[in-house]
């Protein structure tokens, strides 16, 4: 088990997660506001956008080709932007902090 924290306009939400799950799946299972995950995690809908906290950017890693291309269509995306469905959780991400920030 590991813990991840979502920063939302309503406050911080820390939830337990299992290695192997995607960050989007964890958010949806815990009803985190602002994470839709409509397409189920295939990188088609961009409703699971988060901004990774500075200290975690390196450990989480950079977006892949399809994800980068998707993010490039949104002027509100930043260098810390990721689609949470593409972040696979592992023990090394225990304590991860991300900000929930819908793109549109």
């Amino acid at each position: 088990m590991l813990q991840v924290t979502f920063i939302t306009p309503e406050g911080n939400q820390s939830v337990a997660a299992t290695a192997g799950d995607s960050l989007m799946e964890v958010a949806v299972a815990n009803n985190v506001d602002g994470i839709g995950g409509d397409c189920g995690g295939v990188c088609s809908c961009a409703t699971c956008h988060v901004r990774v906290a500075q200290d975690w950017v390196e450990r989480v890693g950079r977006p892949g080709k399809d994800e980068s291309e998707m993010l490039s269509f949104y002027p509100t995306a930043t260098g810390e932007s990721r689609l949470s469905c593409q972040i696979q959780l592992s023990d090394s991400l225990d304590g991860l902090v991300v900000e929930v920030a819908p793109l549109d």
Partner: protein
Amino acid sequence: MFLRMKDVRGVTRDWKTFSSDAPFRVPIPSEESVRSVRQLPIETDPPEHTEYRGLIEPFFERPRQPWMQESIRGLVVAMLADVLARESVEVVDEFSLPLQSRALAILLGVPASEAEEWIGWGVHVLKASDGSGLSGEKGARLDKYIQKRLNSAEREPGDDFFSALVRAEFRGRRLTRDEMTGFCNLAFAGGRDTVIHSVSSIIAHLADDPGILRRLRDHPKLVMSATEEFMRYISPIAHLGRVCPHGANAGGQHVQPDGRVSLCWASANRDGSVFEAPEELRLDRKPNPHVAFGSGPHSCIGSLHARVLLRVLLEELAAQVASIHVYERTEHVEQIAQFARRVGFERLVVKFVPRA
């Protein structure tokens, strides 16, 4: 016509050049002969679009609620029980169409009995059933029904979609009757033939490749990516239009002021620079950045409902059906200028074989 993924996605976000503020002209062919009102929210641009869409968005978010997903599952289970007991079933008229109408009744919060009337409207709510294209008569019938429902919602408001429109406020005023009608017109036209063709096509695929049902049974999580891949592969809406008020340069082609361009979702979904082996149906395709539900601010507002319906359908088919045998099939062919495109079926007669 914009054919490539990158161009299609880009154009949906450049509404100053490629506008949706064009009543009747977002669908291709144009629909001025079958309706008299602007469809809402689709035939507007931001910022009006954002506000119009916000009025009905809560309704279309409801499929996230577990009670609604269970309600959809109850419908699918009951309809499968019926077809599993029969020797043969014509899938389009006896399964896909009633399933779509009854699921829409759940989404719009109206009694199930309403759906029985909608079923009588056929696969496309604005097109003649003989394939002769848009039908003014069908458009008038839909409008008459919408006025009837809006009248009763005004007299006796409830918790349904029509009543929500009657109560809604846009920029400090109530909606006009034309605006309410525009929302309703889209609610009935938008997710109809699209869902019906998708359901029929999925059933044909499951019949042609019996291994799929087994794979879905053995790997329940596959249902998510399989639903998306079916949508990419089927692409129920080939394309939609945008109008260029000031003219435009569209990939080297000059578009006249007031000229129209097409955003071809079906083509973008087979873009070889995005999808490996785009002609192959790969149920575990991930990532799968398809645009079967469009893209940008106008992306399909009913996509969540459609996704829930198709996921539940795949789960229940996998759980209950051993195989599907096709007795007869006539594909539905859509003509787009000089191009013919297969999407869905006119007739698909099958037997659903129950699991022992």
